[in-house]
């Protein structure tokens, strides 16, 4: 029918466009892949340097310092449990994936958020884009990525990167805008330069909000990294995907447990860090 002609046309057009970008931008995507996989390999190498109990003890100590003794104990034991399930290597790859994607996302999102905090027009323009990113089903981002970067961790990282950015942008911008009026006035009356106003007043007051954004970005990244198992991300996501395809229920449950443990440990750690930042501001 009439409409199918139009949609077919659109589809071929999209295919052609992606093909063109893939052909002509190859050097660019090669470069992106290099950066992504380089960072990922680096972090993974670091994580694999130490035996599992060292990492579990480090996580336990962190949780003890940031939260309390019980949390420290639980975090250590829970991570060690991942190793006992025989999933330590996968758990570490997932951690490396999440860490890489989140760090890169924050490196982009926080500066964008800061600019949006200052420039209201930019913030307003950004809003619909962020809404769109957050409402589309996350696996959508795998498609263009796989077309341009191919099967492997780089695709998973790009999709995770996109999904992890919006919360940090939003909450950083909010934090910058929410500086209490009386402190802005204090800054003005003390003769602060615009840069001093930013570093000495606005940024410190925004830290709790930025920390909350980091926590949320991290959680988004965890959600995505499991989905990205489909494109050969490696790690627990791929384990689950493979187990589901072969109906290996036991393995898929084990991997799911490992994901939950990893997510909870990192969530608690970053959340309590955010709380501390807040307590500092009060």
């Amino acid at each position: 029918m009439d409409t199918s002609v139009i949609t077919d046309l659109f589809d071929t057009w999209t295919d052609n466009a992606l093909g063109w970008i893939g052909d002509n931008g190859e050097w660019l995507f090669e470069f992106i892949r290099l950066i992504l996989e380089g960072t990922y390999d680096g972090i993974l190498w670091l994580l694999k340097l130490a035996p599992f109990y060292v990492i579990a003890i480090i996580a336990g100590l962190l949780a003890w310092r940031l939260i309390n003794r019980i949390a420290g104990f639980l975090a250590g034991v829970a991570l060690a449990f991942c190793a006992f399930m025989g999933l330590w290597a996968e758990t570490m790859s997932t951690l490396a994936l999440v860490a890489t994607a989140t760090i890169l996302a924050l490196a982009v999102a926080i500066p964008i958020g800061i600019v949006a905090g200052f420039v209201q027009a930019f913030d307003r323009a950004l809003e619909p884009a962020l809404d769109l990113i957050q409402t589309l089903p996350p696996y959508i981002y795998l498609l263009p990525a796989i077309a341009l970067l191919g099967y492997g961790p780089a695709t998973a990282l790009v999709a995770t990167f996109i999904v992890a950015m919006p919360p940090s942008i939003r909450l950083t911008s909010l934090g910058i805008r929410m500086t209490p009026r009386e402190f802005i006035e204090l800054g003005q009356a003390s003769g602060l330069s615009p840069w001093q106003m930013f570093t000495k007043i606005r940024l410190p007051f925004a830290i709790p909000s930025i920390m909350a954004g980091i926590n949320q970005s991290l959680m988004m990244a965890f959600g995505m990294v499991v989905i990205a198992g489909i494109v050969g991300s490696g790690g627990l996501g791929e384990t689950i995907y493979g187990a589901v395809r072969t109906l290996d229920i036991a393995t898929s449950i084990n991997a799911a447990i490992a994901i939950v443990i990893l997510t909870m440990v990192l969530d608690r750690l970053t959340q309590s860090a955010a709380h501390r930042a807040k307590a500092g501001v009060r």
Partner: protein
Amino acid sequence: MNTVKEANDVLLDCQNVWKIFGARSSAAVKAVSDRGLSKKQVLQDFDCVVGVSDASLQVRRGEIFCIMGLSGSGKSTLVRLLNRLIEPSLGKIVVKGREIATLNAAELRDMRARNIGMVFQSVALLPYRTVLENAAFGLEVRGVPKDERNETARAALAKVGLSDWISRYPSELSGGMQQRVGLARALAADPEIILMDEPFSALDPLIRRQLQDEFRQLTKSLGKSAVFITHDLEEAIRIGDRIAIMKDGMIVQVGTAEEIVTKPADDYVAEFVAGISRIHLVKAHSVMRPVADFKTSQPHCDVGALLKASPEADIGELIDITMRSDRDAVAVVENGSIVGVVTTRGLLRGVAGMPAGAPSAA
């Protein structure tokens, strides 16, 4: 000659300053300067709020100048005009001989950092900094090296009695202590003029009184000038060398506490001063009668035998002297000669707050 010296001593000069808030403020300003509209008319015709209307005041070196008025009378607006946190709609503000409207951004920052300090009602201590770091804030902004600024801040904190609290955070301090840190922050920056916007109004009466005395004594001993905003006339009298009374954005009277209490400019001011105790405000020179006048009414009394007081003696002292004497009158002596006589009736008149010129025979 004398006038030139006086002009030099004026640190802060505010000349016919207006501030009109609202979308059509520029049209309102024009109407005000051309046709002299009132605050009410401006609100009706232009939907603009007059924050400050035609305010003029001079703050001299070493003086504590209080601005008193009810809520909404424009005190905060006026004090924010003085360091250009807001721009005047009309009029001129001169600080240390420089018109601040002509300063560029860097010069204005410099003036705020060096010459005009400010203490806020909300204190505005930075919660993520220790007491010491807060007190050193002004110096930090100016780029003073850490050791030096910490030393100055420590000295300022010692002056306000907070030496033991240096490494605490503001949230660990009581309201009165926080206000002291705010004062120390302003003092450490060593400005010539300190602007204070109702700094003590959130505190309980006892602490408040203590801080008022400390503030006055500190400011005087350091030779600073201050503009002190308050909605409490007693506070203004306690602290201020001179007091300006504001009403609806206008300054209705400027004068010393005694002038305002004894000669209120209008009914509004009179109502304010009605409840104020005059015992320590009204001085002998404003309640005494001329010697000749006294002699005609009491020809048998020997003026030279009366106990003596200076013209600056307040009613409290005069009452003491009268109680020690067996007469009902005290002679006022200036430069060795008797310039007047204060009778018991005069004392009562002073306490009751009747103007000196009112018929005393009634």
